[in-house]
């Protein structure tokens, strides 16, 4: 097997923790942008969380938004520069807790941008607190006895929220295995293709390990995704070219 070349967009080694899924997701996004010839015309919108660490290592134009507001900032860019490829890259706390309104309204208006949402089930940067996506019963630093859904409500499934909306593309992938990563790359490519063909809003949610805050080895983390996370957040493409799939 030939070692694939590292995308030129990854201008420095990433700064994520060992075993963090962001590194793989960064690489997949970088490969897709380069392969599609978008490296020079892309503007990314980050907000607050571990995702922001890519601002110095991933070589596209960036804007850092206030916590949760990446979608609104991305919309501002895309509306005045429709020729640019505009994407948001956010964690689940950022995009689905404080930023749910901005995330959903970008989808509701079918804004022609691409949203990448990394679901690791916790707030990573701040030390592993409960996120909207935290599983029922999952222990976090703010749900030390496990998430009690009678108090917190059920985990938020953004794919289900967006499925009824008239958007261009919707998928959920994972970086839990090489096979998953290959599929994820197809999803991310389809998402950017949707945008660049004027097909409307595209969103890819990515299940990703956080060994540091999960307090698990990488191996255990990947098993956790396989056994516990995927049954709650199933993978697949849910909307393609504006049409709902059977997934």
């Amino acid at each position, binding site marked *: 097997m030939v070692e694939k070349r590292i995308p030129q967009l990854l*201008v420095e080694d990433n700064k994520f923790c060992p075993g963090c899924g962001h590194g793989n997701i960064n690489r997949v996004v970088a490969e897709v942008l380069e392969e599609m010839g978008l490296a020079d015309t892309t*503007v990314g919108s980050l907000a607050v969380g571990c995702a922001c660490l890519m601002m110095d290592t991933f070589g596209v134009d960036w*804007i850092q938004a*206030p916590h949760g507001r990446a979608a*609104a*900032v991305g919309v*501002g*860019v*895309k509306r005045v520069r429709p020729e640019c490829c505009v994407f948001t890259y956010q964690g689940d706390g950022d995009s689905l807790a404080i930023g749910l309104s901005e995330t959903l309204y970008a989808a509701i208006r079918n804004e022609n941008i691409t949203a990448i949402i990394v679901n690791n089930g916790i707030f990573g940067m701040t030390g592993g607190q409960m996120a909207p996506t935290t599983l029922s019963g999952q222990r976090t630093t703010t749900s030390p006895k496990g998430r009690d859904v009678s108090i917190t409500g059920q985990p938020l499934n953004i794919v289900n929220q967006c499925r009824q909306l008239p958007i261009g593309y919707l998928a959920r992938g994972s970086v839990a295995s090489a096979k998953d990563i290959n599929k994820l790359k197809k999803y991310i490519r389809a998402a950017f293709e949707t945008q660049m063909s004027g097909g409307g809003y595209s969103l890819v949610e990515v299940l990703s390990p956080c060994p540091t805050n999960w307090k698990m080895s990488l191996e255990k983390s990947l098993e956790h995704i396989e056994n516990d996370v995927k049954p709650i957040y199933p993978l697949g493409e849910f909307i393609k070219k504006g049409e709902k799939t059977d997934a």
Partner: protein
Amino acid sequence: MPLQLMKGNHALSEAAVRAGCRFFGGYPITPQSEIPEYLSARLPQSGGIFLQAESELAGINMVYGAAAAGFRAMTSSSGPGFSLLQEGISYIASAELPAVIVDVQRYGSGLGDISQAQSDYFQATKGGGHGDYKCIVFAPASVQESADLVVEAFDKAEEYRNPCIILSDASIAQMVEPVLLPEERGIDPDKAWAVRGKHGGEFKRVTSTMYYIEDFDAYIKNKYDTMAHNEQRWESVHTEDADVVLVAYGISSRICKEAVSEARAQGIRLGLIRPITLWPFPVNAFSGLEHVKAFMTVELSALPRLDEDVKLACEMRVPVRHFLGGVSIPDSSVITEAAIAILKEQR
């Protein structure tokens, strides 16, 4: 271009487009709603974008994005909505981007009421959001100034790469007067700092500039000191021989100007300083006024705000009194009487 009869909010909106504004993201709230209403029709005619945002939070962040992309961008709000804009204003200032934010002040804290007021003075001038930043704050006192100052605000925002605020009020916004509109300008979005893809160059990072500037404390202090030094605007009326000088901006200043001429007709030496910029506060207007026996601020608010800046500007050497009008707009004769009472007190 002949005089036109326009509402303050409409004149401001039209002038913004003529100044090259090509993006507006905002949310309805009285008494500023004529601004998004007007721009929803007008911006598309000039190739611009109007977007009704889902909230003020989204609106100011859309402005952040459009401004980062190099376009002249604006939002507007009032009281409760202006509070929601503060986070975004702090980010835009921190990223050193130009943008124009309009606050058409209304009365009260909380929900308050839609009547005219001048209660957002501190929020606009003292940094309503977190951290070390300032915005140039322009206070129009007429429909004409609503148009002129929005053009100035866009130019200054770009010159300093810093957000500028237009602090209007319900009276100036809703009233109709003749206005001479500014000439239409071209746009220039492809600035070196604008994000639009790196196009073979270095990639750009729009975030707090403190991450990339050495000795940031000195740098940012110098930036705001320069603005404070260079950008003070005011109008002085009969201050040269005044015993009592009124200090008022916006709608209050017009009533005060009337009071000055009424008082002068009675032989009472009243004067007026009308700040046109509220930040930087026109401290220079207070130099050479050693003959003044007292200052009196006139504000449409329940609590005094402006008087703190006047006390600082005259370095507490002279008594500073305040006259407050809340929901109702005072008659100029009442202001004159209050000034006479202060004068008697000083004798």
